[in-house]
């Protein structure tokens, strides 16, 4: 099905539909006509989602590692190419992004009342930036999208955010920018090593290139000393994004101040870029350094899990609680990643999706109740399950998904991660399990305080349950939570090859990694496929 897609520019189309929509809104819609702006933005995001759906059906899990590739000359002087392509990991991230994009816009219909034209324009621009990050196969191109995306996010927090929005927005921007520029130096070091070498290290003598696959290829030959520094450069950038302890301090501020849609995208997609960066770059390109720094990485992940969980437990503000729970959950994802084996990486990537779904949904739900009462303090609520039964049900399902109840998605991810982590070290696995217990504690405790008990706050008497639009835009997330919980096979199937590839690379098994590259599994594929990648 949809095989003809491979020859179109489908990825570019998916990536730029939001950009075109944003330009259209800027040029042709008057800002005073808020309803029109809103409808067009919703339509654009929805169309983008629909256009991205065929990717799922026509992606061939047995085919080449990277599919739907596009490649054009861009800056030939330094070998930069405009190159898009997705493997299974990117595919899931792209679909998550287009889906959450629609939901984020739907959730803003009534929540955002000021400067709506600019708001939707920034949301759409953000969408393009994020999609580009997951599709780019050229490191330079990746970096461009990686930074471009910060600008609309800055404005979403800084204009439509809460009382401390100015502080939160600039803190978010400064933190992530400081990380990115250091990564830039790492990219440059790789670039020069691929050519003539640098800092006294003999280079590979290849043509100037920023191709990510090319870097994968030479990665194992980079001397350990150089790998160490490049790893640190990447680490700063990705760890801030994830965020790993102790680089997490921007996150609670940004989350609490951001409008609902901003939080959803921040938690659902932006944080995943950090973990995606580790999977895509740090692990396969810098295997020696990864092993060398493994104890540190695992240690920081564990501290993140426990610390995030404990701080979440102490929060009085629901949004802040969910924000700190993200620190904990992402620590879990990182721990799975650094198990450096099949189940660990598999589970960790699936958990990235799961976290996007369940935390995205949690922020949407908190947004719904905030819109009604304009407070997120847990103490303001109590016993509202009687007033809002549908809301309470939704919230319960998502809470269960988040804490990893079997039949829901969180369980599958966490279990797979634990299997992988246990293979690496039972001590790590113990801490991981502790994180799950903590997660259950703070989530259930919040649920209890908000939904059960006596309703002693008269302001809650007039609460209305969710309306049809709200029910509709959370429903897809709930369905997905059940789908992954009950039948995760298609997801694991898609992840199989890319995960094998990453694990083989990081374990220095370049033969196996090469085998995972295009074509060599399918017996009919010509053996020249590898050469094509290297060109």
């Amino acid at each position: 099905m949809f095989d003809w897609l491979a020859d179109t520019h489908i990825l570019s189309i998916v990536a730029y539909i939001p950009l075109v929509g944003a330009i259209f809104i800027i040029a042709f819609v008057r800002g005073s006509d808020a309803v029109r702006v809103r409808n067009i933005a919703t339509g654009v995001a929805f169309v983008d989602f629909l256009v991205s759906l065929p990717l799922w059906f026509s992606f061939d899990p047995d085919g080449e590692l990277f599919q739907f590739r596009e490649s054009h000359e861009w800056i030939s002087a330094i070998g930069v190419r405009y190159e898009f392509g997705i493997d299974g990991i990117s595919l899931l991230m792209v679909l998550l992004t287009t889906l959450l994009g629609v939901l984020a816009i739907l959730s803003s219909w009534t929540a955002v009342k000021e400067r709506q034209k600019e708001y939707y324009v920034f949301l759409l621009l953000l969408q393009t930036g994020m999609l580009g990050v997951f599709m780019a196969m050229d490191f330079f191109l990746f970096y461009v999208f990686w930074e471009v995306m910060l600008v609309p996010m800055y404005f979403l927090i800084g204009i439509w955010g809460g009382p401390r929005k100015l502080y939160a927005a600039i803190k978010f921007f400064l933190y992530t920018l400081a990380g990115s520029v250091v990564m830039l130096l790492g990219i440059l070091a790789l670039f020069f090593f691929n050519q003539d070498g640098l800092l006294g290290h003999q280079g590979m003598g290849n043509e100037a290139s920023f191709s990510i696959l090319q870097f994968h290829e030479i990665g194992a030959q980079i001397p350990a000393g150089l790998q160490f520094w490049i790893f640190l450069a990447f680490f700063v950038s990705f760890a801030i994004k994830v965020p790993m302890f102790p680089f997490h301090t921007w996150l609670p501020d940004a989350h609490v101040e951001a409008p609902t849609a901003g939080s959803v995208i921040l938690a659902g997609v932006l944080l995943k870029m950090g973990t995606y960066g580790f999977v895509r770059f740090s692990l396969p390109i810098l295997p020696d350094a990864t092993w060398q720094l493994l104890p540190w990485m695992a240690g920081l992940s564990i501290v993140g899990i426990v610390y995030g969980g404990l701080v979440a437990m102490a929060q009085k503000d629901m949004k802040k609680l969910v924000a700190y729970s993200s620190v904990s959950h992402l620590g879990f994802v990182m721990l799975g990643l650094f198990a450096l084996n099949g189940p660990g990486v598999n589970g960790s990537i699936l958990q990235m999706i799961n976290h996007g779904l369940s935390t995205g949904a949690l922020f949407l739900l908190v947004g719904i109740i905030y819109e009604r009462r304009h407070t997120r303090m847990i103490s303001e609520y109590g016993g509202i399950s009687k007033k809002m039964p549908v809301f309470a049900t939704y919230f319960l399902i998502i809470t269960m998904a988040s804490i990893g109840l079997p039949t829901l998605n969180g369980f599958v991810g966490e279990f797979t991660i634990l299997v992988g982590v246990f293979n690496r070290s039972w001590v790590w696995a113990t801490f991981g399990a502790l994180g799950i217990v903590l997660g259950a504690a703070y989530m259930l405790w919040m649920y209890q305080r908000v939904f059960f008990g006596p309703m002693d706050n008269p302001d809650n008497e007039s609460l209305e349950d969710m309306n049809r639009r709200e029910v509709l835009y959370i429903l897809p997330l709930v369905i997905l939570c059940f789908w992954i919980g009950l039948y995760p096979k298609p997801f694991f199937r898609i992840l199989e090859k890319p995960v094998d590839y990453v694990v083989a690379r990081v374990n220095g098994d370049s033969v196996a990694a090469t085998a995972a590259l295009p074509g060599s599994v399918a017996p009919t594929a010509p053996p020249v496929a590898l050469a094509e990648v290297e060109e």
Partner: protein
Amino acid sequence: MAGMSPQDFLLLGPEILLAALGLILLLWGALADKGAGNRACSTFAFLSLVVTMIYVTVQHMSLEGPTRILADSFILDGFSFVWKIMVLLAVALTVLLSQRFVEDGGYRPGEYYSLLLYAATGMMFMASGFNLISIWISLELMALSSYIMAGYFKRELKSNEAALKYFVLGALSSGVMLYGMSLLYGGTGSIQLEGIASAIAAAESPSLLVVMGWVLLVVGLLFKVAAVPFHVWAPDVYVGAPTPVTAFLAVASKTASFAILVRILYQGLPGLRVDWQIILAAVAVVTMVWGNLAALTQDNVKRLLAYSSIAHAGYVLVGVLALNEIGLWAVVYYLLAYGFITMGTFGTVILLERKSYAGETCEDYAGLASRSPFLAAMMLVFMLALTGIPPTGGFVGKFYLFAAAIQAGWTWVAVIGVLMSAVSLYYYFRIVVFMYQKETTETTPEPLREPALAGAIILCFVLTLVLGLYPAPFIEFAKTALLPLP
């Protein structure tokens, strides 16, 4: 030493033409009945610059390889061609930015615009200067014109102060430079760059005279590009000078000064590269650090931009000291991008100025996004470009500069550079915060009503994006300027 021939003067055609046009403009302005109109004079100046640009291009294409003229005083090569085009572009944009200022102040347009043309002539000579005397004289031609322009608000105390400061400190630095040149001549027996280079190469170790000479010369040049610790004049002069002149100083004058800095270091002092690399590295680092840190607390936009322009000189120095091919064309590319970005930024400042100095504090930008969204969006792009965020020319330029530093092994300089450019986000975004996130009682939009000014801003905006999205042709252009590396 090659002799002089009458044909040499033909090769100086573009410079002679521009100087002549400047004189004609001055006479026209003085002799015409009630003084020629502002618009007519600025159009004349603009067209003169465009014609000169075309002449320079045609001349460059007709020449085969580097050509020395007037007893090796000047050289016409790819380097001089590229930098001439850059300074002419910068001056042409300054002309577009100046219309309103001349109009509001009631100044004699013939006088003002002819000064710009003289400065441009000086800068063209700087780009092709090949011996110390010709370099110094062309530098002074530019500097003297700038001193006058800096004080053009005749009745404003701040402007007088700026001009005087600029003049005194500028003269001092020119003196230091000239002294250095004389010592260098004493030590090497030559005023011609190649002669100096070969004399230094022949000596086993440079004599004390030569060392003092080149250090003083480099100090003078660093003063002209406003690098720390020779930057103290810049903030006061930038604030006091009329804004179009500030833009001129920040872009045209700085670009031309970099041209002679690179020319002297690469072709006159290649034998001493190890020494001047260290000095430039130290200067580049303190310039980037201090320029950015000092800008953090500024509330006056022109002062903020002054410190930012100091910081940018630091980034460019990183490319100069890398001493590799990427570094050399990165310097050109960066100055080109920086020129458009800065011109656009000052253009926006001018547009917001009511009378003389109003419109200069960050508060004046409050709510600009709701008053005139298009102008605010352009200013946002300029601020992003100055920070070095894609997809703008500022990003691509910085990328190459730091790539050059990494390749040359100056990793620590690159690390400081990128971190400082992250810091710079904070102060550039002060303006953005006011534009987008602060409310204002003012509701009148700022119409892009003057066609010249609006055109210049829009042109800079478009080029800033083009330089970021499609850099290939501009890289080819920058590569024309490659000099033989020492």
